């Protein structure tokens, strides 16, 4: 009985040590556990997979900063790779707030390095940040060229060959907001409901529960939730033989699996200890005061 009482009072720093070890080991020596894609991820993947060079552009919107990069950068890069390999014209929007442009640039630079034949202005367009948030979303519905004027590199939009057939939402078959904040709801309110453009979302695991309601009501075409969503997308890309880069999300998943197992183990042991201690106390008539 003494062991369990000491276990229940376990100094939380042992737990911190456990979490650190469990996260670091797979990073140094990957284990490679298998991944099973779920419906929201398959829906988004299949929708994009049905598109082609003629079926309207895909707009990928960057909405994350360094703090949510680990979860969302692999998603944005997987989406960009998927569009480039399928030849779908892709517009990368550098975000509705200034803080995101650095991430957008990092995503597009790293991915376009893997596709040397793809040219800016022909296969993809990179739009910089302009202030206005919902005003920007609304004016994209009228005319992209007049809204942005130039792309991120300063070239006028109407001189870009890819943009000749893309004027506004009616020429965009999907907008995917890769966001760690609540901007996907703006895209639903101002883009989908106002102009009827399809919207997909790639978000952090913490915002995913809130978006299930929009997924269930059909407002979102599909959803990537958290690192598992990114790893599932990478898995679907591999199964189709598309290039997947270093598969950062999948490597991260090994650490995730071990960390989750550790926490579950702690919860179970915690409860086992709780019942043993309580039964012991009831025998001796001590009531455990609820602190």
């Amino acid at each position, binding site marked *: 009985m003494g062991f369990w009482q000491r276990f229940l009072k376990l100094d939380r*720093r042992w737990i*911190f040590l456990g*979490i*650190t070890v469990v*996260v*670091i080991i797979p*990073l*140094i020596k990957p284990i490679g556990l298998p991944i099973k894609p779920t419906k929201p991820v398959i829906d988004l993947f299949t929708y994009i997979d049905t598109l082609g060079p003629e079926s309207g552009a895909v707009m990928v919107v960057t909405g994350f900063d360094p*703090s949510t*990069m*680990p*979860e969302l950068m692999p998603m944005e890069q997987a989406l960009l790779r998927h569009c480039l390999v399928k030849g779908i014209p892709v517009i990368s929007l550098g975000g509705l707030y*200034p803080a995101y442009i650095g991430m957008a640039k990092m995503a597009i630079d790293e991915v376009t390095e893997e596709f040397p034949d793809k040219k800016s202005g022909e296969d993809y367009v990179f739009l910089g940040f302009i*202030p206005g948030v919902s005003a920007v979303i609304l004016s994209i519905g009228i005319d992209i060229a007049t809204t942005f004027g130039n792309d991120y590199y300063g070239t006028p939009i109407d001189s870009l060959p890819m943009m000749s057939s893309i004027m506004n939402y009616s020429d965009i078959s999907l907008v995917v907001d890769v966001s760690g904040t609540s901007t996907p*709801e703006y895209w639903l*309110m101002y883009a989908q409901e106002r102009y009827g453009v399809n919207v997909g979302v790639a978000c*952090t*695991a*913490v915002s*995913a*529960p809130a978006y299930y*309601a929009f997924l*269930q*009501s059909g407002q979102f075409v599909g959803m990537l*939730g*958290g*690192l*598992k969503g990114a790893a599932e997308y990478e898995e679907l890309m591999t199964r189709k033989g598309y290039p997947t880069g270093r598969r950062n999300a999948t490597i*991260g998943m090994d*650490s*995730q699996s071990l*960390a*989750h197992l550790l*926490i579950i183990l702690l919860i179970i042991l915690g409860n086992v200890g709780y019942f043993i201690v309580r039964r012991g106390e009831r025998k001796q008539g001590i009531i455990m005061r609820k602190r």
Partner: protein
Amino acid sequence: MSISTSIWVWIAALLTLMVYSFLYKDNPFYRLAEHIFMGLSLGYTLTILWYNYIIPRVYEPLFLPPHQWSLIFPILLGLMTFGIFSKKYNWLIKYPLAFYVGGYAGLRIPLLLQSWIIRQVEASFLTPDKFTSVYSSINAILIFVGLVTTLIYFYFSKKREHGFGAAANVGIIFIMVAFGAAFGYTVMARISLLIGRMQFLIQEWLGIM
């Protein structure tokens, strides 16, 4: 094994370790990182305030042609906040506060009604497409029961007796399931933050992988 040679990466790595030292116990290294962080972030906020707000919204429209003299009124209202410095006139600050808080209250009411209430109610309507299969019908009914009992749990002005009490007890079950689910669902997000930092330390700083 190529350890980073960039001074910036070293600064970032040291700051990271100083914050993590807090997990062991509060110590001068954490305290240093804490105060650097508070100072830098306040400096950053002020810079953003200056470039994104004061210059484009106050200085330029006022002092550069075409001068927008109507800006004098909001500035006067803003100046009234200085009343707080004097004992006699500290009631002056009530005017800009009333304007700011009252204005936003009015602005938020319709948005709240629309996105937090009407949109949620509209989505709870049981449309026929939800009754396509036995499975979806049971789910539709479960959602309806969950919604109604949760709302009943949050009733303030009715004693929780017999029928009403039973509904509230069902409501708390749905609420606890929702909280447990959200908690479990978020573990992954938090762990991935740590993975990100560990990748920075191991790959960028120490260059192991």
